[in-house]
């Protein structure tokens, strides 16, 4: 019977969100329903607990970091526009980037912004650099108790050394992007159903 045009009216400020994030009408509606489904007590916003209830996210080693990215600057609630803005980073890249107006702000799902999202998963203190300590922390999250401290430190040291060009012992955002220039970011950081 087709996804209803009548329900899109429920989404507050839908046009602005669509312009900012580039989601199609159908995707936005889908995300709105998902937002409502996750918001169990019908508060109108999501809290950390709502996201932690998702089983597959709770078992994800980086689950807490991912949840953190929804709550920047210590905020405790995420409303629908902010929810969609974070998810917009994972929208597949548009085919026709050539015709983009250079005066408009970069779309949220550009390669740079995807990399920025990944960078801030590492950079907890938001100082623009991934220190060796921060690298260790993320590694520790991903391996749990399975790996010894020494092995983990050697992996972290090697990774920082390889990426670090100016020798300050930390990986800045530019160094991060340089070490990943051959990587197909568009594919690795895109969720297809979010067209």
């Amino acid at each position, binding site marked *: 019977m087709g*996804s209803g045009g*009548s329900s899109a009216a429920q989404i507050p400020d839908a046009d602005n969100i669509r312009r900012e994030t580039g989601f199609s009408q159908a995707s936005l509606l889908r995300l709105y329903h998902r937002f409502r489904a996750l918001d169990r007590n019908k508060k109108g916003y999501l809290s950390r607990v709502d996201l932690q209830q998702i089983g597959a*996210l709770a078992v994800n080693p980086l689950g807490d970091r991912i949840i953190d990215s929804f709550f920047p600057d210590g905020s405790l609630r995420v409303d629908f526009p902010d929810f969609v803005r974070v*998810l917009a980073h994972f929208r597949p890249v548009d085919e026709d980037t050539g015709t983009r107006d250079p005066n408009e702000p970069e779309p949220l799902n550009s390669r740079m912004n995807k990399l920025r999202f990944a960078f801030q998963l590492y950079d907890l203190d938001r100082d623009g650099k991934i220190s060796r300590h921060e690298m260790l922390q993320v590694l520790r999250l991903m391996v749990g108790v399975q790996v010894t401290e020494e*092995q983990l430190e050697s992996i972290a040291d090697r990774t920082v050394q390889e*990426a670090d060009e100016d020798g300050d012992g930390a990986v800045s955002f530019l160094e991060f992007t340089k070490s990943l220039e051959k990587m197909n970011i568009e594919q690795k950081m895109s969720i297809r159903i979010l067209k």
Partner: protein
Amino acid sequence: MEKGLSGLRGRDFELSDVFYFSKKGLEAIVEDEVTQRFSSEELVSWNLLTRTNVNFQYISLRLTMVWVLGVIVRYCVLLPLRVMLAFIGISLLVIGTTLVGQLPDSSLKSWLSELVHLTCCRICVRALSGTIHYHNKQYRPQKGGICVANHTSPIDVLILTVDGCYAMVGQVHGGLMGIIQRAMVKACPHVWFERSEMKDRHLVTKRLKEHIADKKKLPILIFPEGTCINNTSVMMFKKGSFEIGGTIYPVAIKYNPQFGDAFWNSSKYNMVSYLLRMMTSWAIVCDVWYLPPMTREEGEDAVQFANRVKSAIAVQGGLTELPWDGGLKRAKVKDTFREEQQKNYSKMIVGNGSLNSELG
């Protein structure tokens, strides 16, 4: 996981490995396997019930007229008939079992109680316009065994009891349910627990063991998922039922969603509104497959046995298998699952890392 993490070189840690986990995490936020199992299945084509039409949109006058006609038929013709039948069925059940309960224990009593149970359940199923198709009747659960099935709604019990008598296991309720429970237990031994007793797993196991040890008693009916799932998948079977011993008779129940949605979303609807929805659907059509009996093998623990039974039921019913616990809709997931993911990842980066350092 290996496929998702294929990098430029070997399997050492890469800065980009974080992409894999973050993508998985965000995918889970957009849609996860578990949450969607607790809402009704979406139909491919509409069956003229607004409740199953998620994206309502006006298409044509003719369709609306047909739908209005459907509403009239369902609410004004079918509903009163069904309510009447249900009333008759339940009253007969209560009266019948109380009368049979007066008799002294004998084979006559068990035969009569079976007759009463079967007749009343058949009336109640008719009250829902249930059309049930039984397959492989030769594997029907025998006395002294445990019958295990996937759970979609309280109606599962009715559907199974139409074809044979079972001893039910459950909590003592108040109200109408309580009256029915007390009446039923007079005629034949069911296993009803007080709420406080349910917490004590040893007590529960002991009573169930005693029940199946008596070969004259009816097979116990258990739903190991512990909660209602929407009939598209089978979730984790709790191992408690599989520790009792005895023969397990698996049964797969699959409803046909075209005629009516049988799933009970207990957070959305209470029992009365659920029954009303059932009685105003077109019909309840389902298939019941009896599977060959299974017993726990040597060296198999309860969890493995539970998974084996779960797979058999899922395959027969055409349902997907999920390792998740149905209780997730109320509680948090265990840390052991996260540790498994971490273990898999570590094996990859450290397993190869040490190899490289030996060569390099």
